[in-house]
């Protein structure tokens, strides 16, 4: 009886050790990506690869596989929202349609922000006018102000926000803060008025002496 208990305990202990060790090997071991990458002739450390500057063992990206985003046969095809396949890394100047398509890749994970973006709650917004142009001028206290030069200032049409990759670096999307412009004015500066000080003093003293004289004279009466 005692022996059987020990036996069960021993078996359980061995099993648990096995389970733990297998889990450990999963964490420290090889990702399935590498199998593909071996085929694709892509080398490199997968957990901390240099291109994305991301550690795939911590943070929000923990547990992600390369294949979650990149689709075979090349890394230049990525999966976007609703299982669309988007080609990235093309050499030409990106057309608006192409950029819209590429936004879907970002939208796959950052869906809320994508929705904000489509409704102009996230991202830059601007407008254009007919036969007009936007001139960026350095203006008051060094601000870069978008001056709208239009033929007629009557009908403006809003423009959709710029695509994700036009503002964010896809490999390091967090924006660093820009420089801070000079301090603000909130007190109207009073011009110097020394002459008024002297004038007021002179006038008040003259007038007061006249009044005092009048009072003394009046009393003597």
């Amino acid at each position, binding site marked *: 009886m005692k022996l059987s208990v020990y036996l069960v305990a021993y078996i359980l202990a061995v099993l648990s050790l096995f389970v733990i060790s297998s889990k450990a090997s999963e964490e420290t071991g090889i990702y399935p990506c590498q199998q593909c990458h071996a085929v694709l002739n892509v080398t490199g450390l997968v957990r901390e690869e240099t291109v994305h500057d991301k550690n795939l063992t911590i943070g929000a990206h923990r547990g992600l596989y390369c294949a979650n985003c990149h689709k075979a046969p090349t890394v230049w095809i990525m999966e976007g929202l609703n299982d669309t396949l988007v080609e990235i890394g093309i050499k030409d100047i990106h057309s608006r349609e192409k950029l819209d398509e590429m936004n879907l890749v970002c939208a796959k994970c950052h869906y809320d922000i994508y929705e904000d973006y489509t409704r102009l709650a996230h991202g830059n917004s601007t407008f254009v006018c007919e036969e007009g142009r936007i001139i960026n001028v350095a203006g008051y206290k060094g601000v870069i102000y978008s001056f709208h030069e239009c033929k007629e200032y009557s009908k403006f049409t809003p423009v959709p926000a710029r695509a994700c990759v036009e503002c964010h670096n896809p490999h390091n999307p967090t924006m660093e803060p820009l420089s801070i412009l000079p301090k603000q004015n*909130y*007190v*109207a*500066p*009073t*011009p110097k*008025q020394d002459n*008024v*000080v002297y*004038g*007021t003093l002179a*006038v*008040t003293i*003259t*007038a*007061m*002496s*006249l*009044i005092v*004289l*009048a*009072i003394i*004279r*009046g*009393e003597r*009466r």
Partner: protein
Amino acid sequence: MDIKALIDTIKYILSSGLRGSKSYYLFLAGLTIMMIYGLYNWVFVQHAPIFLKSEYGGLVVTNLTDSVPWGIYIAFFIFWVGVAAAGIVFGIIAYVFNNESFKKVAVLGEVQAIAAIIIVLLLIIADMGQPLRALILMPQLPNLRSMLDWDFVVLTGYLLINIIGLLYTIHMYRQDKPLGKKFIIPFIIIAAPFAIGIHTVTAFISQALTARPIWHSPLLAPRYVATAFASGPALLLLVLLIAEKYMDRFKVDEDVYKKTMYVIVGSMIIGLYFSLSEAQELFWYTNEPWKKAQAELLYMGKGQPGYLVILFAGWIILGTISVLLALIPRYRNSYWGRVVIASLVIVAVVFEKTMTIIVPAFIPDPLGRYVVYYPSPIEYAITIGIHALGLIIYAVLAKASLLTIIKHYEK
């Protein structure tokens, strides 16, 4: 009273008011110099962009800012509204309580009201950015919710009532007729509420603003009225003492001085009591951050400008001293005692009513900034000039009306 009599009365007032001894002319000359200098600074410097369409000048020459948009002009505006309101005290004692000795000097209250309201209106006009526009637009497009319009209405109404009262009184006295009941009863019934009204509405301008927590208390209007009924009679008392000294055959009954002193002391005590009550609420218990910050600036001198706490302490100390002095009959009934008490009351109320009311409400401003406000030299010059003009009007009208009274009562 037809047009001819009206013109005749005005001519009489001007001729008798402007005629006097050499010292009287010296006195007027001194005031005129200050007035001309002040008005010059107002028209040709401060309001030059409006009156002269010039590039220079403008309200920028004042030390007012977007944080402290109201300064010394509005501060003295409030003080003189109080002085004007108290002019009716003599009328009430004379005609409501039917006091013969006060009837002799009641017209002086009207004179004081006229002079004070003229100072008040000039101070507002000097403070306004576009005075000409204001005079055209205010009667045309009133906003019934704006207390400034109501203030304009009651101020001009009170001025009108007092001018009518003064002219009618002088007209009747010149013909050696007593003032009839047909005139006195409607006059007091209309003028007394207006007198309280001008000061109450002036307090209402600032009282209901949630943006300015230190004003946002229903005690503001009562406190205004209470201290007004101290400073106004005190000024009247001083004027009576001066007139008795410098005018031949003018005698004021002892009863007038005694009763006026009672009014002053009573109002001072009420005013000091209201100050205590406000200090308790603002300083002791409130947790509202703005109210607390503004109260600490006013009562404790935390932050700049530091003169506010000095002025407030001055009000409490001088006010208490004047009340204590007035409680002792020996001082209360002597000539110099009266002069000292009345002067102390006026100085104390100037401390309480002017800058200590206006400035703390703006520091800190709604964005939490402490923008310090000191009146600039031009502001001083214009304020002095306007006061000089008011004093000239006071002197001329008082002289004319007192001469009429003397003649009337001698017969």
